[in-house]
Structures are given as structure tokens and as C-alpha cells.
């Protein structure tokens, strides 16, 4: 009757088995898997970010340039906890069409990060006040404040750069995991380069929330919370007055001005026209203006001062002279004959009328083409070189040390390197060492494949002003009140040309302005050394170029100006440069050359503002463009 007690064993085993199954499953959930811990953090904790003030920018004289203004975003916490949101009331609060609610929410979700998505960006003041008032009913939503940029002067947009929302790609590239979606960061110019210093450090407050998103308490008594640390102010090397003046002089023209303090490499002004007002790229205005400016055929977003590349033309003769002197193939007394140009078999490089047997100084003053064709032969075909490659590389080495052929490494983006062909390039065209200076003669007068950016030209002026060395041009002067700017900007770069070789070249440049091709642009009381250049542009009017520095002794400013499609260097680039020099050195609100000022600002140079821009002019190898020099 009474069944076997062994069945109690089965039941006992069933209990133990059941218990084991539960314990093993629990072990998996609690100890092995960490997805639940992550989910728990995501839904029960909320990190509220305190955004620090972004660092201000002031100019070299302490003048405020960039500061902050509040901007407001409406963000939604995801996943939304409120299941029965009164969409109509919410849309009324936002004053949006109820039909837009779904798509806006979807966009917010699609771009969400860390449980948060931006529902509506950049509320204006009225919206902010209204929404703030009614938002307590919608616990999934919150207004976040972030700083927008404001500009005290409408200048230097290319240099300052702009701040905008982080892109998906930038988020993915952000290895430090500092940024969240919807946040802002410097996108170009100084805002981008000094992003880490300017942004400061976000503060993070950790809160526990309940199932409807209300904050319950601080996590861990706030021990993990951090305070926001304001961004460092940045003192930039721009002189606001000079910059503004440069932009005025260049208005209506296409081109650029770069002015450098030779002693330090600090950039005093960098103008690129056509340009834009930095306020057009403030966060709240960006989306409205960006498409228009991007589409503009005049390419206002292009910073021509660093990104446009031109054959340097006659300006390059300064470099040729310096290399010749350093190599010992030229002396002050070296003469070459010029009978209307350089003739070699069927090759002719034309020259303009001038006394036929110039010495070095005179060749610079008159910008004799034939002289440099001869000098090029002397430089490349020295006895010490076994073949043309060695000679060419020796010459090219100087160019590299002058900062040509690669980017200088400024603290703003967009920079291009210009172009200096390699020996290999000519080997490919002409056969290995089957070429001589004749084949590449146009390089000697700054044409052919040679390309320089305006900042490289200004840096050339600085090198000559310094008699042989330069500091990488840059904008940062002080970060957080301290002079410890990135160290690449405090390293002296030597060109390999000895200081004593500069005397002749400097004298020649002085006479270019005092009595040579740029005499019309001279400024009384300031000894300016300069060199004009005009580069033939196969696509239209010639480009007008001028590089200069002043004063001759103990120079304070080195400058390069390019006005595209404007004709002779002497007619536009030179007066703009000398007016800039006058402004910087005299610091006077009135000019001693109102005639120049009127000419520059009152009339439009021929062919400018045509909008199309051959910022990069290239010339084929064998064609020997005559540089039409004054």
C-alpha cells in the first residue's frame, strides 16, 4: 500500500535540480553578462553636462575679438518614458506643426547618443522663455544651454574659423570619447586648431532618475561629479586694426594679404577675399548661410592666403640671387648680358628693355629675366655635381629650407603646400639625367611648375627681413595668459644662406621701392624693401604680386599681397602692401598717401571680382612664359 520511499529521493533531486538551474541562470545574468548593468546605468542614471564657457579670443593688443553668447537646444532623453505624451499640447508649446512631431522625434532618435537626442536646436530667446515655462509637464525633454560665438569685429573669418555641431564622422574619430552627439566643436581656423584649449572641460553631474525620468538624487552623493572648467582665453597675433584695414583695401578684389612679424613669425594680418562675416557662421546662423556660401562661385570660404597657389614670378628672383650668392656662383659684381632676353638655340626667354649688362643688384631692380636664366645655369651646372640631378637637388634643397613645396604648418587648416617639382619628375619627362637647365628654364624666373602660397611668399619676405631664418608663421600668442604656445612655433628654421649674402638683395629691394618698379607706392619716412611680381595667367588677366618688409633695418613687418587678375604687381599689390606697412608702423588713422588709398578703395581693378578663380595657375613644362616684369 505504502509506495516506495525512494520517490522522495526523486523529489529531493528535483528540488536540488530546480535550485541549481535558478542559481546557474542567475550567475549568467548577474556575473557573466554585463549587458544588464549597462542597461541599468542607461535607464536609471542621467548625466547632466555643464558646458564650460569657451575661451575668448583677443588680438595682440588685448582687443576683444571673439566672445560667447548663450544658445539653447531642446533635447529629449531616450528611450522616452512617458508613453502617453500629449503631443498636441507639446507641439503647441513649441509652436510647431503636430505633423512635424514624429519626424523631429525620429531625427532626434536617429542622432541620439548616450540616451539623448536634440529635438530642436538653437532656440531663440522668445522660444526659450516660452518653452522653459511649460516644459515641466514633459519630463523626457530638457533645455540645454551651450555657448554660441559672437564677434566684436567682423574680421578674419577664415582665421578665426567657426564652431558647429559635431558630425557623425568626427564623433567616430573622437578617440578620447569627449564629445556627445549634438555638441559643438571648432570646425576650422583657430577654433579648430585650439579646440582642446578653447573648449575647457565639461562638468558632469550624475543623477539617479525614476521610471518617469524625474531626478531622485545624486549618484554616489555627487562624488563622481565634476565641475565645468572654462576654456582658456587665446591671445592671437592678429592686429585687429591692421586686419580690418587689409580687408577694406582688398574689398571688391580677389586675392589675399599676409603680414608677418619677422622676428617671431606671428601673423599680424591675414586677408582673403572674397570672404564673409564671421557672424554668418555663428552657430545660430550657420545652417542658414552655409549652403549659400558653399555654392558661391567666388569661393568665399576658401582661405586664399594659405590655399591658393601661384607661380611666384619675379619675386622668385630674390631666392635665385640668394642661392647664387651662397653657392658662390654669383657675386655682387657678376654681370650677364641681356639683349632683349635670353637666347639659347631656338629658345628665347624674352625680357623688357633695360641696360644690357646688369650686375646682381641691378638685375633685381629691373627684374632681368636673362640674368636669372644664366644664374640658373651657373647654380645647376657646377663642377662639383656629377649630373643634373645632384645640381637640381642642391637647388631644390634651398627651396625646401625656404619653406616652399610643402605646408609650413600654420595653426589654421586649409593650408596647401605649393609646388616644387622633384628631379624624378623631370627624369620621367626627359629621361634620367637627360635634361639640363635649358629644359626647366622657366623655373629660374618663378614660372613653370613652381607654385607658392601667399603665406609662403610672406614668409620669404620675413626670411629676407631676418637675413636668413624664419619661425613658422602662426597666430597663437598666449594661451590662458601664458606664452607656452605649441613648440613648433618657437623653433628657428635656418635657410642655409649666410646673413652677409642678404645685404645686396636687401639693398636691391630697397631701391625697388625708393626708385624702382614700386616707386609709385613708397611711403615717406619708412624705408620699405620690396619686390614686385606679375604672373601671366593663361586664363585671364595677370596676377599682381608684391612682397615687402619694413623698415629695412630691424624690420617690424613682412608682407605679401596677391591680387588676382589685376595686372602689374606695381599697380595693385604694391600700393596695398605699402599702405598696410604704413598703417602698422605709423599706427596712424590717416594715411600720407591718400592718393593710393583712393585708388585702391575707390576703383575696381580691371578684371577682379569676376568670380572665377584660378587660384592655382599651372604652366606646362616646356612653355617658356615670359614673365612680364616691370
Amino acid at each position: 500500500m505504502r509506495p516506495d520511499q525512494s520517490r522522495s529521493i526523486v523529489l529531493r533531486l528535483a528540488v536540488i535540480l530546480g535550485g541549481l538551474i535558478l542559481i546557474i541562470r542567475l550567475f549568467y545574468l548577474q556575473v557573466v553578462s554585463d549587458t544588464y548593468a549597462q542597461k541599468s546605468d542607461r535607464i536609471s542614471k542621467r548625466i547632466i553636462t555643464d558646458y564650460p564657457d569657451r575661451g575668448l579670443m583677443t588680438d595682440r593688443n588685448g582687443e576683444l575679438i571673439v566672445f560667447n553668447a548663450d544658445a539653447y537646444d531642446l533635447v529629449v532623453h531616450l528611450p522616452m518614458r512617458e508613453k502617453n505624451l500629449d503631443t498636441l499640447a507639446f507641439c503647441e508649446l513649441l509652436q510647431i506643426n503636430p505633423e512635424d512631431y514624429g519626424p523631429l522625434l525620429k531625427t532626434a532618435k536617429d542622432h541620439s547618443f548616450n540616451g539623448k537626442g536634440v529635438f530642436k536646436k538653437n532656440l531663440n530667446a522668445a522660444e526659450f522663455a516660452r518653452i522653459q515655462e511649460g516644459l515641466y509637464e514633459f519630463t523626457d525633454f530638457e533645455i540645454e544651454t551651450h555657448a554660441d560665438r559672437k564677434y566684436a569685429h567682423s574680421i578674419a573669418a577664415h582665421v578665426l574659423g567657426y564652431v558647429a555641431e559635431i558630425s557623425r564622422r568626427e564623433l567616430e574619430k573622437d578617440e578620447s570619447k569627449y564629445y556627445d552627439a549634438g555638441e559643438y566643436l571648432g570646425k576650422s581656423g583657430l577654433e579648430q586648431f585650439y579646440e582642446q584649449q578653447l573648449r575647457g572641460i565639461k562638468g558632469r553631474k550624475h543623477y539617479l532618475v525614476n521610471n518617469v525620468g524625474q531626478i531622485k538624487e545624486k549618484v554616489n552623493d555627487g562624488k563622481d561629479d565634476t565641475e565645468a572648467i572654462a576654456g582658456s582665453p587665446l591671445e592671437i597675433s592678429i592686429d585687429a586694426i591692421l586686419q580690418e584695414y587689409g580687408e577694406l583695401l582688398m574689398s571688391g578684389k580677389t586675392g589675399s594679404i599676409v603680414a608677418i612679424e619677422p622676428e617671431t613669425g606671428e601673423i599680424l594680418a591675414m586677408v582673403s577675399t572674397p570672404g564673409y562675416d564671421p557672424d554668418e557662421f555663428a552657430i545660430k546662423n550657420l545652417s542658414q548661410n552655409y549652403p549659400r556660401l558653399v555654392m558661391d562661385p567666388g569661393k568665399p570660404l576658401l582661405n586664399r592666403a594659405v590655399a591658393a597657389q601661384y607661380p611666384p614670378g619675379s619675386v622668385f628672383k630674390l631666392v635665385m640671387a640668394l642661392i647664387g650668392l651662397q653657392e658662390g656662383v654669383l657675386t655682387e659684381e657678376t654681370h650677364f648680358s641681356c639683349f632683349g632676353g635670353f637666347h639659347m638655340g631656338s629658345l628665347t626667354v624674352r625680357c623688357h628693355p633695360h641696360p644690357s649688362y646688369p650686375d646682381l643688384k641691378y638685375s633685381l631692380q629691373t627684374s632681368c629675366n636673362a640674368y636669372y636664366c644664366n644664374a640658373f645655369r651657373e647654380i645647376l651646372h657646377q663642377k662639383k655635381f656629377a649630373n643634373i640631378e645632384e645640381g637640381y637637388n642642391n637647388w631644390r634643397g634651398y627651396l625646401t629650407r625656404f619653406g616652399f613645396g610643402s605646408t609650413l604648418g600654420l595653426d589654421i587648416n586649409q593650408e596647401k603646400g605649393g609646388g616644387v617639382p622633384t628631379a624624378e619628375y623631370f627624369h620621367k619627362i626627359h629621361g634620367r639625367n637627360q635634361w639640363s637647365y635649358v629644359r626647366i628654364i622657366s623655373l629660374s624666373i618663378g614660372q613653370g611648375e613652381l607654385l607658392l602660397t601667399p603665406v609662403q611668399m610672406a614668409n620669404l619676405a620675413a626670411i629676407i627681413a631676418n637675413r636668413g631664418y624664419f619661425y613658422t608663421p602662426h597666430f597663437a600668442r598666449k594661451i590662458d595668459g601664458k606664452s607656452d604656445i605649441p613648440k613648433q612655433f618657437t623653433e628657428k628654421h635656418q635657410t642655409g644662406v649666410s646673413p652677409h649674402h642678404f645685404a645686396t638683395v636687401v639693398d636691391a629691394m630697397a631701391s625697388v621701392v625708393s626708385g624702382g618698379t614700386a616707386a609709385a607706392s613708397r611711403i615717406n619716412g619708412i624705408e620699405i624693401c620690396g619686390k614686385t611680381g606679375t604672373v601671366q595667367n593663361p586664363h585671364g588677366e595677370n596676377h599682381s604680386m608684391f612682397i615687402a618688409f619694413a623698415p629695412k633695418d630691424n624690420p617690424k613687418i613682412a608682407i605679401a599681397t596677391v591680387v588676382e587678375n589685376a595686372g602689374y604687381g606695381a599697380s595693385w599689390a604694391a600700393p596695398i602692401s605699402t599702405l598696410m606697412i604704413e598703417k602698422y608702423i605709423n599706427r596712424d588713422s590717416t594715411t600720407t598717401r591718400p592718393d593710393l588709398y583712393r585708388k585702391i578703395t575707390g576703383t575696381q581693378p580691371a578684371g577682379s571680382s569676376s568670380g572665377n578663380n584660378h587660384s592655382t595657375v599651372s604652366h606646362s613644362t616646356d612653355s617658356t612664359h615670359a614673365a612680364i616684369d616691370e
Partner: protein
Amino acid sequence: MQQSTNDTESQLDFVTILLYLLLVAAGFMCIYSSSHGTEGFKLNLETNYGKEIIWIVVSLVMGGLLFLIDARFFEVFSYAIYGICMGLLILVIFLGKEVNGARSWFELGGFRLQPAEFAKFGVSLALARYIGDMDVNLKRRRFQIITTGMIVLPILLIVLQGDAGSGLVFLSLLLVLYREGLSGAVLVIGLVALVLGVLTIAQGGTAVVIGVLAIIAVIVGFTYTNKAFLRKLALIAGSVVVYVVMVQIFFDKVLEPHQQIRIEVMLGLKEDPQGWGYNVNQSMIAIGSGGFLGKGYLKGTQTKGDFVPEQHTDFIFTSVGEEFGWVGTSAVVVLFVLLLLRIVHLAERQKNKFSRIYAYCVFSMLFFHVLINIGMTINLAPVIGIPLPFFSYGGSSMISFSLLLLLMVRLDANRGNELDSINY
């Protein structure tokens, strides 16, 4: 009689009582954690933990009273108690208050009473009395029908109230029948049916039928078989096909869509974190985020933030999981396992059949509750809404489980005086 009272004192099974008190204490800590709000501890009867204190006190008092009543009282009046319980189950269908779609609660001056919980007590007593009767032979059809009827009646009544989960609990009494001689084949067939049913829903009936036929074909192919064996196999194959088709039809045509979803979510066939699976998802997050040692008592983020729905009742185990981690959950599981093993031990030492069967009834229902309740918090069992004994908030469950268990202790304490059965 007087003597037996004295014996009771000396023979109380303190192991069971200790395990019981530990579980009740741990349960109270969890209820406090999940319902204490932002204020500190206050003896406030407005709060859930305040009310739970009353239930615990009532349970202990009533448990104590059991020891003042003659042990034979419950055996003698077992059918009457069963009858009263069934009466209440019927009454509640008409007079009950509807909560969450189920009409299974009486409301008495702010307190709620769930007759289904007390029915456990009545059914256990009646079953123990009936099967314990010397004349009952479970092998005889008549007794089988009556036994089945005693179990099925409360299930039907409770299902009628709309609370299928609480009804299912009584199926656990199959374990008692197993212990008392029911063929193990019934349990095995039940398990096989369960597995086939799950496979049918998960993989589709066709696949299951093909699979089973394939297995049978393999058996036929690899074994020498006589005709009788083949006939048996054919019978099995036929039954399986009929069964699978029935399950398929039941699932597709009879069940409501929300019931289908519940089952599918439980089987992991559907992700449904915003719908019905929301509770289970939140439950797993709370438990899973506890880690090895837990977040610390009263420091559970999910508990504090009320993320787990019904946390203080059906999902009270999440509070253990989150705040005490795997160490805590394992400890609770171990306590229950020890208690269940202890109950089996007590049951087997009873000389009186009534006491033994009653103890197995307690065992079966407790086992079912623990396994299913904890199982559903970690997605091993469907959410059928039954409480975790001694842990879940609620007077009915607290009192009925306490009485169930303590009466067993009472009977056990009296075992020395029960050498012979009662004569009626």
C-alpha cells in the same frame, strides 16, 4: 490530550521555523527597500512595509494559535474547510473586486483578501484526508476521479475568476500523487507533452511532426522489431501527430493574441520590451545589474527608481538581485531549497499518512511558487502572476503560506501521538 500539548513544545522542528523566520525577515527587508520612498523608516501603516508588518504579526499569531488547537481538529474538519474555501472561491466571482482584469479579491475595509491563496490550505487538508484514508486505493478509477476532481475544482473556479496563474498552482499536486503511487509515466508523458508543445509553438507543428516521425523511422530502421513493437510505435506516432495538431490549433485559434504574445516572449521568440515583455525586461535589468555582490541594501538604482513594475509583489526577487547580487539571490534560492528538503524530510518521518500527504501538499505548492516566481523574474517561466512565498507583499499570500507551513510543523510536533488513525 494534555500530554500531547507538552510534547508539542519539546518536538517543534526548529530548523523549519528558523528557515521560515529567515525568509520572512529577508522578504520584509526587500519590501521595505522597494517601498520605503524617500523618507527613512517610519512605523506608518499607510506604507506597504507598514502593512506587511501587520501581515507578519497576524501570520505569527495565527501560526501560534495552531498550536493551541488539537492536531486532530484539522483532519476532522478538513472537508468542511475545503468546502468553505470552495464556497469563497465561488462567492468571489460574484462579489469580488476586479483588479487587473481578475475578479479574485474580496475587499474588506481597505484590506484585500484573496480566497485562492487560502484555497491551498483547504485543498491540502482535504487531499491529505482523502488519500490518507486507509480505504483509498489510487489505482482504482473511482478514487482517481475523486482525487482529480478535488484538484480540478479549485483550478476551474480560480480560472473563472480570471486568474489562471493561481489556478495552475494546484497542478503541482501531481507531485503528491506521484509520491503516493501515481505512475511516474504520467509525469514523464506530461514533460514530453510540454517539450513537444513548446517545440510546436517555436518551430511550427509540421517541423515537429516530421522530426518525431524521422526519429521513429530511425528506431525502426536500426532495431529488429516485432509487430507488437511496431504497433506501439505507430500508436505513439499517431498520438504525437494528433497532439501537435491540437496544440497548433489551440495556439492559433483559441488563444487571444495577447496570450500568444506572452507565450512567445517567454519562449524568446519575440522581443517585446515595450509591450508585455517590459516587466520581464526591467526585471532582468534589475537583477542582472546587481552583479556578484549587489549594489548594496537600499542602493538599487532600479528599485529606487521604480523601474520594475509590481516590484513589491510578484517581482520582489528583483530587489534581492539588484541590492544583494548573485550572492544574495543564491542565498535565497538555497534557503528555499533547504526549506523544501526539510519539508520532504519531515513528510517522510510522519507515521500518520494524513500528515505525510499534507506535508507533501505544502512541499508541492511551495516548490511550484518558488520555481515559477523566481523563474519568471529571470525569463525562465511565463509571467503568471503568482507571489514568492514569504517575500511578496500581500496579506493573503503571507498568511496562507505561513499557516500551510506552520500547520505542518504543528502536525510534525504531534507525530508521537499519532500512532493510530482517527476513528470516525
